């Protein structure tokens, strides 16, 4: 038990006490509170909650490391994960809010008037959120593993228990307000080390302005070492892979059920629009800092760690080697650790850098608490998405429409526990780095929900047969491409597994449109409901005419 352990642990416990306190205070009592927090969350706070929900272990723990190792090519994650908010806020969020349902499968089931489509959409939600949560659990494993100096696997198991308990308890209402607190913790925890590193290395407290020079300087160091420059484009993949990955991450953002559901928690279309803007501002704070984090870490590793004697490596190396995520091997036996003999996993860069840069006990503990906040808040949102897809869309809307509210809530809570345990089992042996696993979830969302929702909102002619074909074809093509690219080595234009969404989306759009046109148009009522989404709440589309609801009457 060293001092660092005690400091980190007490910061984490203090933040946990805060989250649990908020969750208990806001415990969900009704179904609408469990799923959509009673729909009364103001846009600024909803923006923060979206931010916490959105910024997962992948953003917090994995992204800076990915950028550090991939250089410019890693920036596809920065642009993709922020640009998606344009698609979401312009094309889908306000319209889906006006339609007024609890979940994404419910929109698809009611818009296309088909239980088959509803069940397929629910299954897609479960598959996507489940894949995503594997990344979160393996992220919390890294944090807990480092904290207790145990194997990351054991850390994952502890994370599973925490997350299952925590999400099952509060529901959406508890989670929304907890996430506001988690956003504040995680953004402070992320920015403080970057500011300190910036001061240490450049003497400028604003990392966003100061790391540009470093990027150039590292290019020179790379040239001397004879490796490709840090900022050189397309060194780790083709330009097409970069573009495909960026598109996949953008469209996936707009199609992720646990993010879309966030826009159901606000009051109106206008509030949805503002929520999107606030959310991206809050998210942008971290995304603008991640490349700075990456640049400072790389610079410190290159100039202060590489080149030192293998017997005189600082103490932090040992604890990280123990987690199995860092390798320092003196390959050429000259007693000196070279840059290329240092193998660091994407997933530990953010966690290890405060130690590497000697930022002190408190900052290291704070980063651990921030990482836990990121993993927990996203896992919470994902688990709500999974449980609502199962308990609400499959169990209640299809299987047992007469079940009581109490039964439905308990089915919802149990499905969270079971889903977390299953995801935890897979996370014990994660099939990829955190950012990569998460990118698969985005590829799946791009191939399934993005086309289905865009056509569902913007094209009244799209019908149930079309959407069913689109969802199945999109899911099939995306999964097939991920597996053949990852395990079969098959690629088109150098696009690898993480960019698979491009093909899934193209196939799904084509299938949806072709099948819709070959079959009968949807009913007049459905077509009118789709036309109605063009206008704000007060304007109502009916029988080919638009009506203005001036008295604000609730009868529509």
């Amino acid at each position, binding site marked *: 038990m060293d001092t660092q352990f005690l400091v980190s642990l007490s910061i984490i416990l203090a933040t946990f006490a805060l989250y649990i306190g908020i969750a208990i205070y806001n415990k969900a009592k009704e179904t609408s509170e469990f799923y959509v927090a009673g729909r009364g969350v103001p846009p600024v706070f909803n923006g923060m909650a979206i931010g916490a929900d959105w910024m997962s272990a992948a953003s917090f723990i994995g992204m800076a490391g990915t950028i550090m190792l991939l250089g410019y090519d890693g920036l596809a994650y920065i642009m993709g994960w922020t640009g998606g908010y344009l698609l979401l806020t312009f094309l889908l969020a306000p319209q889906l809010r006006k339609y007024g349902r609890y979940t994404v499968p419910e929109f698809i089931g009611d818009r296309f008037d088909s239980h088959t489509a509803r069940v397929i959409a629910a299954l897609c939600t479960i598959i996507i959120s489940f894949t995503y949560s594997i990344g979160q659990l393996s992220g919390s494993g890294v944090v807990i593993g480092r904290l207790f100096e145990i194997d990351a696997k054991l850390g994952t198991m502890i994370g599973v228990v925490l997350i299952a308990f925590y999400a099952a308890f509060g529901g959406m209402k508890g989670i929304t307000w907890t996430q506001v607190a988690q956003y504040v913790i995680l953004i402070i925890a992320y920015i403080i080390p970057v500011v300190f590193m910036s001061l240490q290395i450049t003497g400028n407290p604003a990392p966003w302005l100061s790391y540009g020079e*470093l990027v150039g300087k590292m290019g020179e160091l790379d040239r001397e070492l004879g490796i490709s420059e840090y900022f050189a484009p397309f060194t780790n993949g083709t330009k097409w892979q970069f573009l495909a990955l960026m598109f996949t991450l953008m469209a996936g953002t707009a199609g992720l059920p646990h993010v879309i559901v966030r826009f159901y928690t606000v009051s109106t279309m206008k509030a949805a629009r503002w929520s999107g803007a606030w959310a991206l501002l809050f998210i942008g704070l971290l995304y603008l800092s991640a490349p700075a984090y990456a640049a400072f870490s790389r610079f410190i590793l290159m100039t202060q760690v590489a080149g030192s004697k293998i017997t005189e490596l600082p103490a932090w190396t040992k604890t990280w080697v123990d987690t199995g995520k860092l390798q320092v091997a003196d390959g050429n036996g000259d007693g000196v650790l070279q840059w290329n003999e240092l193998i660091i996993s994407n997933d530990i860069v953010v966690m290890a850098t405060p130690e590497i840069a000697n930022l002190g006990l408190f900052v290291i503990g704070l980063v651990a608490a921030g990482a836990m906040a990121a993993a927990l808040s996203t896992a919470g949102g994902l688990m709500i998405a999974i449980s609502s897809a199962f308990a609400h869309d499959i169990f209640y809307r299809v299987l047992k429409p007469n079940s009581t509210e109490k039964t439905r809530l308990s089915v919802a809570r149990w499905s969270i526990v079971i889903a977390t345990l299953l995801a935890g089992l897979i996370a014990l042996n994660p099939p990829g780095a955190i950012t990569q696993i998460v990118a698969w979830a985005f590829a799946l969302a791009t191939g399934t929900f993005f086309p289905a929702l865009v056509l569902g909102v913007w094209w009244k002619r799209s019908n149930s047969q079309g959407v069913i074909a689109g969802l199945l074809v999109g899911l099939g093509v995306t999964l097939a491409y991920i597996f053949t690219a990852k395990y079969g080595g098959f690629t088109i234009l150098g696009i690898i597994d993480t960019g698979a969404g491009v093909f899934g989306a193209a196939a799904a759009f084509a299938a949806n449109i072709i099948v819709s046109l070959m079959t009968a148009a949807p009913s007049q009522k459905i077509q009118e409901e789709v036309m109605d989404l063009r206008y704000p709440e007060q304007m109502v589309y009916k029988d080919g005419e638009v009506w203005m609801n001036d008295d604000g009457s609730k009868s529509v």
Partner: protein
Amino acid sequence: MKKIDKKVADSYFREKTRNMIIYFAIGFLASFGVVFFAEPLSDISINGFPFHYFMGAQGAVLTFIILLFVNAKMGDAIDRKYGIDENKNEQISSGKVLDH
């Protein structure tokens, strides 16, 4: 409820759609456009960064944030122009939700 001219309703939708297309075009250029021409643009330097790196790490994100706020503001302005009252939206919206 009173009927409004279909033309008025259509022009509401058209204005919003036109703005949306403009925002998308700008966002697309800032991200996909710059990536596509990354190599030639890398010779330009901005604040110490090669230009393509700057756009990927900061420029595109800032553009997106600005576009979203412009969209929110402009959306409000268009709503006002067509006499949409947010309080009424709220009332209607809370009543229209499918409750189950």
